[in-house]
Structures are given as structure tokens and as C-alpha cells.
């Protein structure tokens, strides 16, 4: 094993494997019978599976025609393509508040979709469309050859796409679809806030069992159920990735269209995206409705003051980044130079849900309950893979010629690192750090499970105001959600800039 990976493996062992092991042991023991025989939990599992599969199908069905449209040039094409990944990094609470502002009990539209599966599927499409769409659009250039051949042989454009294009796209679809399944299946914040008691996923049921009834064995059994499914799907996803690698560099220039058609497409695609992402507009609209909330939220007496929540969010993110940076970069370097098994081990944190992480820490580290490092460890665990996975392709893409030239010219390894490698991977590192930072700031599941009043972040400050009587708490929650959204958006804009400044 490469020595670089040692600190990471130690961290994973303490922060993930040991707590997970205890959860599995407890879940297989007392909790198992209760969970398996209980029709309610079986129904939660069934619904979680249905939600995952339904979300995948929905994203695929919507992405396919969209990808076809994106082959052409029309006003707004580049903007919508870039924007489609933004929702993915938006915090759960922001998205949930957006939906509540638009179509909740106090919704702008007057239409109340709270407690229905439709709002959950809409939220899933909102979050995950980019996961399927972007790789599809990047893959489309590869289709031009075969599609051309099909057209020459007499097929209409649509038929060529259906019979030739889509089968060629299948690996990308399955890959993106598996990711969508994983994220929807382990969904927590959105079903908790929007689904009501009838549409709780396994994760929500785990949290309720813990927080309402302190039922550790039952909660552990539910985590175990979830792990089995995510393990299988993740394995499938990795096999797909291994068998099919695509370079996302080099996009084909979009084809020009006649003006009328281009405008039509702009309206159609643009209109669809505006509708899809309208909850964000609803959130901002709601926030502007009550200026008084903007003032009262910072020092509210009955809830966590907004100022404290903001300080906590930034401070914890900063602290976690101090760990994420060395951990993520060491890991990426170790995988680049080392064994494949390290790569798969590094994906474990993505398999485990945040509530499970919190549950595990409560179980195995009771003496650390008052220590902030418990929460920071959870944040680090859940976000360092984002840095690693962004950095790895950059490392793998380092031009060997340049590195070898530096070596031949007599530069020692550390000098190579600082003067040659680092400048080349810095944009990816910054991008990965920004992603990790966004993920930490928006983290909800682990924060809610491990909550302590002095650790309240913006996400918790929003959550505690929901469901409380009166209009003021709701508007304060909206304001905080907008603040959180602004923070994450600022980060992402910085990310885009640094990516283009390369």
C-alpha cells in the first residue's frame, strides 16, 4: 500500500468503518426482526426503491429529448447547460424551502403539493437532471458517425436517434441513472420536509426511530437495509465505469439552426427549465415579501439566531476544509500512484447516508458527544470524496511528457510537485474544494442527528423554524434559506471563474 494512503485509511477506519461495523452488528441483532417483520418498514423500503427507480426513469426520459435539442445552437443553450448542475450542489434546505414557498401549504401558487409524491418526483428531477444530461450532451459527438451512417441508409432523424443513438448512449444512461437512483434512494431532507408522514424514505424512518423513540436497534436495522441496496447499485455503477470510460474534453460545436427554429427551441427548452427551477424563484420572491423578517432573523429570541447560525456554518466549513484538503489530495495522489482497491474504498462514504454517520457516532463515540470534532469528522467524511473525484481526472490527465522533462532536467520530487504538478492541477483542486465546501455548508442529515444548540448551522436554523406557529418563523426560514443559497451560489460562480481562468 502506498504510504500516502495511510492517513486516509486510518481516518476511514475510525470515522466510517468502525461506526458502520457497530451499526451493522446492532442491526443484525435485536433490530433485525423488528424491522423485517414490520410492514411499515417494508413499505418504507418499497417506497424508497420506487422513488429511486422512478427518479432515474424520469431523469432519463427528460434528458434524452433535451440532449437531442442541445446538439443545436440556440439562444441560452450554453447558459442552461452550465446551470443544470447548479441545483445538484444546492443545500437540501434551500431546495425544500423553495418548494414550500411555491407549492407548499403557504405556497405562492395556492396549489398545495405537500405530502404528495408529485412534489418529491419534481424535486428529484430538479436535483438530478444535470447528472444525466451533462454526460449525455458530452457523449453526443460520438454519435455523429453512426447516426450519419443510419441517415445515409435512409432512416429519418428521429428513427436514427431511437435505433442507433440511444443504444450507443445506453452506458451513459445507466451510469447517470444509477447515480440518480443512489441519491434519490438515500434522500433525507426533501422527503422529511415535503413528503409528510406518508412518503417517508428509509432514511427519514431511521431518523424518526432515533429522534422520537430512541430506538437504536431499529434504526440500525434500517441503515443495514439501505446499505445492502446501495452496495449493490454502487457495485453496478463501478462495473459500468470500469467498462466504459469517456473523455469529457472536446465538445462538438453545436450545429446552427434557422432563426425561427432556434428561437422556437430557445422558448421550449428555456421555458421548460424556468418551470423546472421555478421553486428557486419562488423562494426569492417570498423572501422579498416581508422585509421585517430580514431584520428579526439575526437575533431571534426563540430560535437559533441567524447570526450564530451563519458564523457556525462558515466556521465549521473552514475547519472541515482544513481536514478535507490534505485528506482529499493525499488520497487522490495515492490512488493515482497506487492500487485500484483504494479507489473503490474511497467511494464508501458516498454509500453511507449522513443520518447513518450521525447514528454511528452517537453509538460508538459517546465520550466525544460534546466535542466539535465529531461533527467536523462527519463533514470531512461526507465531502472529501468530492475533492478526490475532481482531482483524480486532473492527475490522470497530467501530460507525462512535461513531468518526465522536469525529472530529466534534475528537479527533485518536491520541486516537481510545487513547480510543475501543482500549477497544473490547481484549478481542479480549487473546483473540488469549492464543491466540498458547498456540500458542507448545506449538510443536513448528520447535523440534525448530532445536533447541539451551540452547533446550529443555517440548515438547522431553517429547520427549527418550520412547523412553528405564526408567519414570522416561516419568513425567517425563507430568509435564512436565501442566505444559504447566496453563499453556495457565490462559491459556484467562483468555481466557474477559476475553471475558465485556466
Amino acid at each position: 500500500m502506498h504510504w500516502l494512503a495511510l492517513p486516509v485509511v486510518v481516518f476511514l477506519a475510525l470515522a466510517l468503518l468502525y461506526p458502520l461495523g457497530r451499526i451493522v452488528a446492532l442491526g443484525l441483532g435485536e433490530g433485525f426482526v423488528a424491522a423485517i417483520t414490520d410492514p411499515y418498514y417494508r413499505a418504507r423500503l418499497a417506497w424508497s426503491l420506487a422513488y429511486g427507480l422512478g427518479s432515474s426513469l424520469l431523469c432519463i426520459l427528460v434528458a434524452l429529448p433535451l440532449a437531442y435539442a442541445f446538439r443545436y445552437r440556440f439562444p441560452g443553450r450554453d447558459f442552461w447547460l452550465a446551470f443544470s448542475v447548479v441545483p445538484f450542489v444546492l443545500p437540501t434546505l434551500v431546495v425544500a424551502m423553495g418548494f414550500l414557498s411555491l407549492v407548499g401549504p403557504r405556497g405562492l401558487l395556492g396549489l398545495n403539493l405537500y405530502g404528495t409524491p408529485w412534489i418529491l418526483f419534481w424535486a428529484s428531477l430538479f436535483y438530478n437532471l444535470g447528472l444525466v444530461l451533462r454526460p449525455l450532451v458530452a457523449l453526443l459527438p460520438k454519435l455523429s458517425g453512426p447516426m450519419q451512417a443510419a441517415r445515409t441508409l435512409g432512416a429519418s432523424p428521429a428513427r436514427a436517434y431511437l435505433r442507433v443513438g440511444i443504444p450507443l448512449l445506453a452506458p451513459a444512461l445507466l451510469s447517470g441513472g444509477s447515480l440518480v437512483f443512489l441519491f434519490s434512494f438515500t434522500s433525507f431532507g426533501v422527503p422529511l420536509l415535503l413528503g409528510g408522514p406518508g412518503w417517508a424514505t428509509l432514511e427519514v424512518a431511521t431518523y424518526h426511530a432515533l429522534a422520537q423513540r430512541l430506538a437504536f436497534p431499529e434504526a440500525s436495522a434500517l441503515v443495514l437495509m439501505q446499505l445492502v441496496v446501495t452496495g449493490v447499485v454502487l457495485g453496478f455503477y463501478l462495473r459500468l465505469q470500469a467498462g466504459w470510460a469517456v473523455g469529457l474534453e472536446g465538445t462538438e460545436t453545436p450545429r446552427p439552426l434557422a432563426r425561427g427554429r432556434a428561437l422556437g427551441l430557445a422558448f421550449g427548452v428555456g421555458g421548460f427549465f424556468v418551470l423546472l427551477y421555478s421553486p428557486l424563484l419562488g423562494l426569492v420572491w417570498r423572501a422579498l415579501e416581508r422585509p421585517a423578517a430580514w431584520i428579526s432573523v439575526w437575533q431571534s429570541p426563540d430560535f437559533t439566531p441567524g447570526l450564530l447560525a451563519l458564523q457556525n456554518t462558515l466556521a465549521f466549513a473552514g475547519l472541515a476544509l482544513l481536514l478535507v484538503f490534505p485528506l482529499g489530495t493525499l488520497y487522490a495522489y495515492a490512488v493515482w500512484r497506487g492500487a485500484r482497491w483504494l479507489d473503490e474504498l474511497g467511494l464508501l462514504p458516498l454509500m453511507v447516508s449522513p443520518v447513518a454517520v450521525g447514528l454511528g457516532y452517537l453509538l460508538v463515540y459517546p465520550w466525544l458527544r460534546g466535542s466539535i470534532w465529531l461533527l467536523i469528522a462527519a463533514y470531512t467524511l461526507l465531502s472529501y470524496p468530492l475533492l478526490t473525484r475532481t482531482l483524480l481526472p486532473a492527475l490522470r490527465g497530467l501530460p507525462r511528457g512535461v513531468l518526465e522533462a522536469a525529472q530529466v532536467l534534475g528537479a527533485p520530487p518536491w520541486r516537481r510537485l510545487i513547480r510543475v504538478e501543482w500549477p497544473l492541477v490547481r484549478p481542479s483542486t480549487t473546483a473540488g474544494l469549492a464543491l466540498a465546501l458547498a456540500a458542507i455548508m448545506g449538510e443536513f442529515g448528520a447535523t440534525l442527528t448530532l445536533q447541539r444548540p451551540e452547533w446550529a448551522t443555517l440548515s438547522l436554523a431553517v429547520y427549527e423554524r418550520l412547523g412553528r406557529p405564526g408567519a414570522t418563523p416561516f419568513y425567517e426560514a425563507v430568509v435564512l434559506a436565501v442566505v444559504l443559497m447566496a453563499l453556495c451560489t457565490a462559491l459556484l460562480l467562483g468555481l466557474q471563474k477559476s475553471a475558465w481562468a485556466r
Partner: protein
Amino acid sequence: MNPPDDTEGFFMHKTRNIGWLAWLGILFVLAAGILPVLAQQTTLTVLTHNSFSLDKNLIARFERESGIKLRFLKGGDAGEMLNKAILSKGAPIADVIYGFDNTLLSRALQADILQPYRSPELSNLRPELLLDQTFRATPVDFGYVALNYDRDYFRDRPLPQRFADLASPEFAGLLVVQNPATSSPGLAFLLATVAAFGEEGYLDFWEGLRKNGVRVVSGWSEAYYTHFTRAGGDRPLVVSYSTSPAAELYYSEAKPKPSEPPTANLFLPRSSFFQVEYVGILKGTRNLRAAQRFVDWLLSKPVQENIPTQMWVYPARREARLPEVFRFAQVPPEPARLTPQQITNNRERWIREWTQVVVQGQAAEAVRARR
């Protein structure tokens, strides 16, 4: 080779430098966040439920005379708050916990999160409230959880006459209750149904309620201030306290002041439940002396006489006077009764069975069969 010209470079790479500035800004706020923690403060943190309230002047006087700053942490309804205290055992999130009641007492004691304290004021309290012989839980106030109804809604409509009537179709969609897992009045109401219908009948009653459209929320304030028709909601029947109608009159802003409250108690036989609220000092507190002073203060005459109009419960102190408006507060003639031992032995199972029938939609018979 010329060294890079940095003056030009600084402006050319504006975006990169904005990045560094942003990082600096973050570190700044980080420091601002940590600095207050370093400052020393003697603050006593009291974990309470959401309905906690005391006169601000009384609190200010206590802070002045004792030199202790009080910080009240509202942790949800009583059950939720107690669970938070239990989950943070060993690293308590507060020094004192107030608001867990006799229905939750054994959960608090069994979790072993409280330390004993024999306040000198104990001899001034009603002896029947001293249920904990280990002195870890000290009674502060008591009351009756009871059904309330909106007089306006039922002006020309018949009221339910028996407890079982609530599950009959003519009263469908009228009731809002609290989840016994998170709420103490919710739990008290559940216990009343167990006392009234017995082990073999209470789940059928709840299944009937579920089919009759009962609404379940997580806490009393949500039920009373969002879903009760008096607050603009759509449910004219709510599980609340026997003193709530008196409170409605007290807070009424109608001119002239009405002669009777707009809501009333619905004292169906054995539908009310006697509730005592306790205060306890959490194990592991670093402010033991301050915590003890706080408990003594809670039991002192001025505070005990202030509690009725703040939290609408009766004071535990024997000779504390009740306010004038409490003549509208009635005592239920036939409250439900369960022994503390019965509650201790069965509470968690009753909550679990209730959850299975009402929240999860299982059949009462199926749940009973799995006992």
C-alpha cells in the same frame, strides 16, 4: 530569464486574487465565530419545552441578585426535549431541564441523566406531587390535559357525549392531537385512552380515530396555534389543558371583554389526565451551585404565583395564590388514572403500538396479535 512582473500580474489575475480575498474573509468570520467562545461567562442554560414562559422582570431580578445569566433553550415539546437531553448524555447540552412530566418521568430517571437535589423549598410543596423518592425530579407545577372545543363551531351542533363518540362518523375530521412520542399532552391523552378503553380496546379506538380523519402534529403549540379553529385552522376539537379556556379569556382583545371564554373544556368521562411538570439538574453540569439556586427560585413564592398566568398550570407550592381569572379554569370531574408503575412498565410499548396504528396505518388487530 526575467522574473515575473507581479504588479501587472496582480491586476491581470484579478479573479485569482478575489479568490484569496474570499478565503481571508472566511477565516475572518471563522475567527469572529470562535472569539466569543473564548470569553468567560457564567451562564446557566435551562432546557425547556416550547411553552415555557415567565415574567421578564422576575427573570431580570433573579439575574441581578444572583449574578447568573439565564439562557433558555427551547427544545420542542416535552418528549422531544427529553430525547435530546438523553441523546447528549455525558456531554449535556444544558445545566437544568424543565418541563418533563409524570408521563415521561420514568424515561428521564431510567436514562440516568439527572442528579439528586433536595431543595429547602420541598417542604412548601404539595406532598402528593413528590413522586420521585430519589429527589432527582422536583415538581414545579401541575395541570390537567383535557379536550377543548371551539364554542362558535359547536353553537348549533351537538357535542360528543362519550369518549368513544370521537371515532364516530358524525364527528369526522374535527380533532387534532399531538404525537405521544414527542409531546407530553399527546402522551397524556394516549394514556387517558388506555385507562378508558383498556389494553384490549384502546388501539381499536385509535384506529377508529385514524379512519375518522384525526390530524396528528408533533407538539402542543402547533396543534393549538396552527390547526385549532380559534387560531384560524380547521379543527374545532383539540387536546389541550383544562386552563386553556381561562387563558383565552385572559388574552382576549375583544372589546368589551366577553363574560365567558370562546372555548370550553370537553370533560368526557376519563378523557382528561393529571399532569405534573418537573425540573431536574442534569448530570455533568459545571454550574451545580447556580443550578440549585435556580431550582430554589422556581419554587419560590413570587415565581410560583407568576406561573399560572404564564404557562396556565397550577403552582406546586401549597400556599401560592391563584389569579382571579382561574375561576374559569375547571377541574375535570372524572380524570383518567394510571399508576406510575403501569406507566413505567408500558409506556414505550404503548407509544410504539400507537405509532404503528395511527402513523403507519396498521390494523389494530394485527398490532395486538404481534404482542
